[in-house]
């Protein structure tokens, strides 16, 4: 069955009889989910900043319309966790909000501008400082920055690579499960 039905796109594959109904439903639900424009957990400014962060962390070569910040907002609004957290981090929602405040403080400290108005190279530098535990700003007093960055990056990566269009990019065809 390998690849023979993947002459078109992953969308053709999902609609083919190589895919079980349970798998097709799961993937179509994800594909059909419209991007979140009105966040429930974050305020609009925080949400925009999270979207900018996701755009730094994930490269979309073909501009795939994959919403990453939206599923994170939904998870936090519904109080869902992945089953554990580092004991020295606050709860997930509080940690995300501290992070979003913190990266702006670091942007101001390093570049005299808000996170929204600096260049993408400068945003990379801010995030790199957070990842390396070297970010400056009062928000970081209550957040081990490198550890939260690991959590953030993991969630962003998992959301992105769960999307069939991202999976197609890496040559994955395992959704053909029958």
């Amino acid at each position, binding site marked *: 069955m390998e690849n023979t039905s993947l002459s078109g796109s992953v969308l053709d594959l999902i609609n083919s009889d190589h895919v079980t109904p*349970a798998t097709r439903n799961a993937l179509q639900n994800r594909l059909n989910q419209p991007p979140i424009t009105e966040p429930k957990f974050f305020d609009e400014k925080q949400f925009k900043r999270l979207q900018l962060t996701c755009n730094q962390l994930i490269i979309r070569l073909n501009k795939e319309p994959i919403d990453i910040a939206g599923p994170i907002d939904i998870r936090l609004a519904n109080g869902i966790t992945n*089953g554990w957290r580092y004991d020295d981090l606050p709860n997930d929602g509080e940690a995300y909000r501290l992070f979003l405040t913190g990266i702006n403080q670091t942007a101001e400290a390093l570049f005299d501008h808000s996170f929204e108005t600096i260049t993408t190279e400068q945003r990379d530098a801010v995030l790199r400082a957070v990842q390396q535990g070297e970010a400056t700003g009062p928000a970081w007093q209550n957040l081990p920055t490198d550890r939260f960055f690991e959590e953030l990056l993991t969630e962003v990566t998992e959301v992105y690579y769960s999307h069939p269009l991202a999976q197609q*990019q890496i*040559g994955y065809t*395992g959704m053909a499960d029958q």
Partner: protein
Amino acid sequence: MTENTIVDAVVIGTGAGGAPLLARLAMAGLKVVVLEAGKFWKATEDFATDERAQDFLFWNDERLSAGNDPIAFGRNNSGTGVGGSTLHYTAYTPRLQPDDLRLRTDFGVSEDWPLDYQRDIEPYYDELEQFLGVSGPAQYPWGPIRKTSYRYGPLPVNGAGRLMEKGCRELGIRTSPAANAALSAPQFQEGYGWRSACTNRGFCQAGCNNGAKASMDVTFIPLAIQHGAEVRAECFVTGFERDSQGRITAVVYEQDGQEQRQRCLNVFLCAGAIETPRLLLINNVANSSQQVGRNLMAHTALQIWGEFEQEMQPWRGIPGAVISEDTHRPAEADFVGGYLLQSIGVMPVTYASQLARGRGLWGQSLHEAMSRYNHVAGINIMGECLPYEHNFLELSDEKDSRGLPKPRVHFSMGENEERLTSHANQIMREVWAAAGARNLWAFPRNAHIIGTARMGTDRETAVVDPNGRSFDIPNLYISDSSTFPSALSVNPALTIMALSLRTADNFLKS
């Protein structure tokens, strides 16, 4: 069944510890009820070949991970639903070796098991491998000579497995197709019907969708139901009622937001090595030894990943296809115990997640590493871990959605785990280099929680006796990996099931 019915036994948990004894008790004619926190899925209809959609298989109530090597839970070390963690285990079912039971005798550390391999464990392995339908090699190179053959021939060796065979051959390390509790031929299962042969879909860790994998929901649970056991899903146990002698008279649980109780003569607590001690600590019972939650161990489980010239399709096939136990007791080792080597396949989101967590890759570097996903194969170990004073589970002040304290798990590797891991790191890198790998990288991890309600012969230092019976509460039994006195250098599922059957048999004899 009315609220006032007194059943012979309430079993708490439907995983590898609970399901086998549930079936055994039901087949002996006892009136038994099992309470399971998660749902009763119908895998053939409900399970998607998609990691994110299958998140419901994991125990996603938050646990707090502390120490120098905090343990990941969720998809790594937990399970929920009828079948427990067996819903997402890889079905890897090596037997322990007799010297795994004698670390104290052989090395002067950890604990000996108060059990005899030939008398107490081997007969159950023989029975389980037939019942579950374990697929394995005709000749297994390690351990005592087997009295029985594996029921079926080995599953096809996938890409990672072939590379491990190649790399090990060059280094003179013996390998074998691994024993896996997944069918290489269809099997009829009493109470369930025909289980299909494995289709090499490779999603064992996200739930098997055709019954090929011997999870409890397609094996012991249907057998138990056939013999009259009642399975109550979505019931979360919160406590016990006890009489003036301290015996448990009823199990208290939440169902649909309502508190319920089930009166009973006996209780079998099989909730896994986190929820079992958590429930005992919350209720402050069975802990006169002060050992509940202590002695927490987690296998050393370092993974080495590499990229290969050829396409691997790393999601294909039984993930742990090839094994070596040549490192069970390595010559001139500077550590106690040993480990097994295992080839590993990997699903895409799991691999991406580990690149993020383990290497901190993002942007262009993450994109490039993931663009080579289809060329990736892994090798890992399952190794000994010693019990330490500093590794334990406690109740935190933070409450979960039910108002119960979240568990906090302290874990730091000791010198023995560091040395063992360092030894394994070098060997695995050599094997992978010999197999042609480039861009090697290591993902450190610890898997399987063990030891938090240990078994022993002395009520001062152990929670349960060698039959799994509480020293403090004579009608309470514990059956899961929390009773293991030492960690073993093999995956625990088959041994958990063996002890479960043994506990049931000894209970029925008494």
